């Protein structure tokens, strides 16, 4: 791949690894959670609890998956 394109790919790869990392499902769950929170908030429903709940549960799911993979 010629230099300008290889640099773009390298930057894209760095940003993906930096932001998303090993488990893309956690990033996806946070993105969906933020969208749901926005919808609830627009409809005047208390929504601050949703993201902390997603964080705690997704962390558990991801850790469990990682330890199963390691066995």
């Amino acid at each position, binding site marked *: 791949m010629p230099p300008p394109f290889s640099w773009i790919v390298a930057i894209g790869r760095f940003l993906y690894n930096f932001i998303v990392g090993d488990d893309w499902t956690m*990033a996806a769950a946070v993105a969906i959670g933020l969208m749901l929170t926005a919808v609830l908030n627009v409809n005047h429903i208390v929504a601050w609890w949703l993201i902390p709940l997603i964080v705690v549960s997704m962390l558990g799911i991801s850790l469990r998956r990682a330890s199963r993979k390691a066995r």
Partner: protein
Amino acid sequence: MTGLWAVLITTFLASAVEAIEMVTIVVGVGATRGWRSTVIGVASGFGVLAVTVVILGAALSAIPIGPLRLVIGALLLVFGLQWFRKGVMRVAARGLAGIGGSDPQGDADQWRGVGMDWTAWFLAFKGVVLEGLEVAIIVVSFGAGANQLGGAVIGGVGAIIIVGGIGLLLHRTVRRIPRSLLQLIVGVLLTTFGTFWALEGLGVEWPGGDASIPGLLVVYAATALFYITLERNRALGLRPAA
């Protein structure tokens, strides 16, 4: 508004995590291949990082605080969650151990030539830029989100100076700093502020306003302790009581 101390502590710890590897690489290269080219490589690397911080800081300062907090909050939340997860796994597996092992550049060839040693320059430059880029992004985004960019830069630079000083004076001590525990603490802090800012950016009202930040911190810290215990029990083959 997030206090200056919270910004200083978070950016200091985040920078310290990456600075440990950065200093280990630089000291390894300097000790084996000579200091002159290594120091020039380090200076070039920090030059690139300084330009990155200035450009990124200027770009983020131009965005209104509402959308900025949503974007930065979401970014810090996703990124912080990664460190949170890695920190739990590593602390559960290794406790408070440092990075250990032999020097990464310990097998490098001795430089006996005259003039610039480009291998040493490149190794030092790469070590500083690669390890420092994540820190630069965290420091700038955290500082912009808290509206305390100056404090964030002081925290980040302070950590690099202190860890760098320890690395130069007491080479082996740097490798004994409990990096996994630091990574876990920073993961919990970034996840806490990321959660708070992302929801503030969406216009969500937190119960108690800023006072909910310590509450979130306690919840996430308790979560970390719970999962560390669970991971240790899993590693030992223990099952929770029925």
